[in-house]
């Protein structure tokens, strides 16, 4: 078999990895070769998982646009495209170094900016690792987009998005995950359990979303003069449902991929992820059925996502049976939470705060409660510390950030623009030319 990589071999400084395979068979050579193959397998799995997590960007884009109005669909697609595009660049330049660089404080890293840890010919693992972490950062950023839909200035959003990928997410990330590379955070030092990011990714994104929704205020028409909650139905439920299926698929990269190693541990993580999501979707459907007399699809879809977020922290250290319990509770919780935030007049069109913030916190606690290795007061305390730290940091930093944006370039479009729709005003076009739109 002729590997195309040889085509560029002459151009590449180092010998091609894996060349060792051709070495004369000695015990040592074999041992090394086995290592080499396992390493290759780790790369393949980690990067395949990264690709799946990347695809979650599409899932978020679809869920968010499906749950909002036709006149905002272009804007949501642009926000999701830019979350990932700008996020990749800012995480490359700044975020990755803050999150995984060496640190003596345990509060943020100070090395490895601009992927400087990689030298052509050197160990490419840092690249595989960066790729996987990059899609995680962008996920945190994109969570916020839905909660701020239909009324946010595009420029203001871009500034927020860059800041989250460059600072807010990585700094918290360094506390919990820094030691995965060169860092070493104060939170992980305490034994904080958050295998794939219920808190690090989802709560951080969810609490930032809460800050954004609060600073923005509700969409025109979301609350009647007499303060009653008015429904603003989403314009494309099939797209939203497709988005949820894509997110579920992406989570099979998000959770098991967090091993960043192609080993047998991923089996249980797959199963736990799936069972929690399934249980949560069913629980949310039943809850909505009981409360609204109909099995409502918006809540059922949110339910599946709630179960995925809920199991993210504990997917590697709870049993499949526990995963079902975690999912069931996530499904009930998300419905009640969505209704709660509606009540207190926080207009979150897609339920991002409830799904990612609230269920992320719940999942982090659950990772301690259902720990297969047994639960101690110490574990619970650490989990709570992490949960609270995430809220204080993410909500606080995002709140200040949004206020600053509001005072400077402006965060919200004018009333007239909002009625016309952000698509025309911010992007000069419509999502559905050719269709008769009724709102």
């Amino acid at each position, binding site marked *: 078999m002729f590997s195309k990589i040889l085509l560029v071999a002459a151009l590449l400084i180092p010998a091609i990895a894996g060349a060792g395979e051709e070495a004369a068979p000695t015990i040592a050579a074999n041992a090394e070769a086995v290592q080499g193959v396992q390493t290759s397998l780790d790369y393949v799995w980690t990067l395949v998982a990264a690709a799946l997590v990347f695809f979650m960007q599409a899932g978020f884009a679809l869920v968010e646009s499906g*749950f909002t109005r036709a006149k905002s669909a272009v804007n949501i697609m642009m926000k999701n495209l830019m979350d990932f595009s700008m996020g990749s660049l800012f995480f490359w330049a700044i975020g990755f170094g803050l999150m995984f660089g060496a640190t003596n404080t345990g509060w943020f890293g100070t090395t490895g900016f601009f992927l400087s840890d990689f030298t052509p010919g050197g160990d490419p693992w840092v690249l595989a690792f960066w790729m996987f972490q990059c899609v995680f950062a962008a996920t945190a950023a994109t969570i916020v987009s839905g909660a701020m839909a239909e009324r946010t200035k595009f420029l203001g959003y871009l500034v927020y998005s860059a800041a989250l990928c460059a600072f807010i997410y990585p700094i918290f990330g360094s506390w919990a995950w820094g030691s995965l590379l060169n860092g070493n955070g104060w939170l992980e030092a305490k034994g904080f359990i958050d295998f794939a990011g219920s808190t690090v990714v989802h709560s951080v994104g969810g609490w930032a979303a809460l800050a954004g929704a609060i600073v923005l205020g509700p969409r025109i028409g979301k609350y009647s003069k007499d303060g009653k*909650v*008015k*429904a*603003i*139905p*989403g314009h494309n439920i099939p797209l939203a449902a497709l988005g949820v299926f894509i997110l579920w698929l992406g989570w099979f990269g998000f959770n098991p991929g967090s091993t960043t190693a192609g080993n047998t541990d991923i089996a249980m993580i797959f199963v736990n992820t799936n069972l929690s999501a399934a249980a949560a979707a069913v629980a949310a459907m039943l809850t*909505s059925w009981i*409360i*609204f*007399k*109909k099995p*409502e699809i*918006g*809540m059922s879809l*949110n339910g599946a996502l709630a179960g995925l977020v809920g199991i993210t922290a504990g997917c590697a250290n709870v049993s499949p049976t526990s995963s079902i319990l975690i999912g069931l509770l996530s499904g009930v919780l998300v*419905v009640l939470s*969505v*209704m709660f935030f*509606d009540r207190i007049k926080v207009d979150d069109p897609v*339920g991002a705060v409830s799904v990612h913030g609230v269920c992320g916190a719940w999942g982090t606690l659950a990772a301690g409660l259902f720990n297969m290795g047994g639960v101690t007061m110490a574990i619970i305390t650490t989990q709570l510390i992490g949960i609270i730290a995430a809220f204080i940091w993410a909500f606080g930093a995002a709140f200040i950030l949004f206020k600053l944006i509001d005072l400077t370039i402006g965060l919200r479009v004018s009333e007239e623009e909002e009625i016309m729709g952000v698509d025309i005003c911010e992007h000069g076009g419509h999502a559905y030319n050719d269709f008769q739109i009724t709102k």
Partner: protein
Amino acid sequence: MKKIEAIIKPFKLDELKEALNHLGILGMTATEVKGFGRQKGHMEVYRGAEYEVDFIPKVKVEIITTSEMVDKIVETIISSVNTGKIGDGKIFVLPIDSVCRIRTGERDKDAI
């Protein structure tokens, strides 16, 4: 000449068309409309918020015809789309000054 406007339930359009054809009516124009009336709408729920949909999908059928035909057509409409249920709709008859076929410039009777 007269213009007959009938507001009917959407799924009755085909039956109405056939009935009118049998009557020798060779032309009509249909429009998607939303109707508010005695027929109460229904509650819908979206992500926990209930709301009433009181504008109900209807179809408006417009028929230009001669004064003589009006009664026949009205009867035909009634007999073909009447379900006896609230919301069956209305028929309005309006006066028309003139009609013209764009293709030929023919007027009035000859234009329909």
